């Protein structure tokens, strides 16, 4: 598919391969992500999404091929890559014993930023966690934990962010909160590569969608381009029934901002 880019890509992957023993997880992945884009990496469980993200974020070494992030090679210039990225792993990597504020301060200190406290307060505010900021993370709900996790990834405003299945295991309300956070990121010009197994999530968030299947990117394009792969849509009339999700969200009132900081449900 079309991979043409005007400026230097934020992420560039060529012929990347990785095996665990006999199991070939990545069999020659090619991918380009333009700066400022949100790209969804779509694939079923075990497709190799997490493996690809871990290689790009320098925590796993590839067997073959090349990958660069922010213009730096992930193998030979790993230190520079780490300056340019942040990784939000599949499971919220937060410290349960520390408070939300302490988690953010820790990351700010590890990124060697001046005034970690001010950074922490600003991010707590941005993710509606100010009231919960002084509580240990162990008391947070799944959605709050994930929001804190993403907030920790934004410390120091890295230009490229990897989100590995950011909404897996979240309730619909928390999922929408995370989507909101991702959209705000993109509005700020951050490049986002997110993996998901939910088609609607890719549709909601991504400028481009890449489908990873059996270790290769088999399709890569905008939603419109992907839709053109199929024969033109037939017009049929059906009665619009509310989905259970619509009902759930209507009943619990997901839009009220005051419930965001509420107790874990």
């Amino acid at each position, binding site marked *: 598919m079309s991979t043409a880019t005007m400026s230097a890509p934020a992420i560039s992957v060529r012929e990347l391969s990785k095996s665990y023993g006999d199991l070939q997880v990545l069999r020659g992945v090619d991918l380009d992500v333009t700066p400022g884009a949100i790209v969804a990496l779509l694939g079923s469980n075990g497709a190799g999404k997490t493996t690809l993200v871990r290689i790009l974020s320098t925590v796993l070494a590839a067997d073959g091929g090349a990958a660069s992030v922010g213009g730096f090679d992930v193998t030979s210039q790993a230190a520079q890559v780490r300056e340019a990225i942040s990784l939000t792993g*599949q499971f919220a990597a937060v410290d349960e014993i520390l408070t939300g504020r302490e988690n953010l301060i820790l990351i700010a*200190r590890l990124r060697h930023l001046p005034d970690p406290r001010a950074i922490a307060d600003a991010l707590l505010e941005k993710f509606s966690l100010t009231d919960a900021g002084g509580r240990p993370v162990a008391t947070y709900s799944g959605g709050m934990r994930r929001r804190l996790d993403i907030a920790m990834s934004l410390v120091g405003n890295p230009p490229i962010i990897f989100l590995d299945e950011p909404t897996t295991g979240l309730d619909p309300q928390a999922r929408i909160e995370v989507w909101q956070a991702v959209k705000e990121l993109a509005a700020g010009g951050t490049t986002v590569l997110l993996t998901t197994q939910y088609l609607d999530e890719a549709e909601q968030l991504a400028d481009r969608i890449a489908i990873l299947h059996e270790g290769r990117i088999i399709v890569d394009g905008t939603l419109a381009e992907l839709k053109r792969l199929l024969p033109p849509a037939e017009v049929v009339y059906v009665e619009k029934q509310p989905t259970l999700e619509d009902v759930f969200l209507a009943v619990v009132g997901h839009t009220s901002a005051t419930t965001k900081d509420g107790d874990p449900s």
Partner: protein
Amino acid sequence: MTRHFVSDLGALLGRSLRHIARSPDTIITTAVMPIAMMLLFVYVLGGAIDTGSASYVDYLLPGILLITIASGISYTAFRLFLDLKGGIVERFQSMPIARSAVLWAHVLTSLVANLISLAVVIGVALIMGFRPVAGVGDWIAVVGILLLLTLALTWVAVIPGLTAKSADGAVAFSYPLIFLPFISSAFVPTATMPGPVRWFAEHQPVTAVVDTVRSLFAQQPVGNDIWVALAWCVGVLAVGYLGASLTYRRRVA
């Protein structure tokens, strides 16, 4: 990348020390088992043990301190295992930090936690009639040897912490370490043991360390024991540190 080692270590050490401060139960449980053993041996079994020294608690305490360390370091393996499992190590690895600071923070935390546990156990021993005649220099030597031993065993504990598949597995390695003092001069003099057991008891590290600490407390000459003890500690430290570093490099690729 290592130019930030000190500040990164400071940040991560602050985190680990907060964990201890907020779950002091880990220090209490570390001290409870050795204290229970000390009570058992001094008030139940000790009367029947002839050590030749005036008070059995004086004889016993060095071995109890070693058991305290052996059970204390297993918490390092446990905490490290939880960090890896929770993904926070992966987050640290993807950041521009000095990578070795992640392990050093856990190791230094272990030194602090064990020092507190040891102080608690010694406090109880004093209540039970432990009367050291050691001077300041002897005390410094005792603390130095115990810290060196803690450092060495903590690096060993890092290895199961990095490789274990379960929390139980991460902690299980310490059980033989807790048992080792029983086959040494820690509880009874080795002279009464049958040949092969006695040979093992007299040539394993616990005996050298225990005899050294006991002599220092009593202001007796330490003789060769202190050099044997130090050699064991440094040897275990070297092997543990190398093993842990290699495992870490392999584990986090």
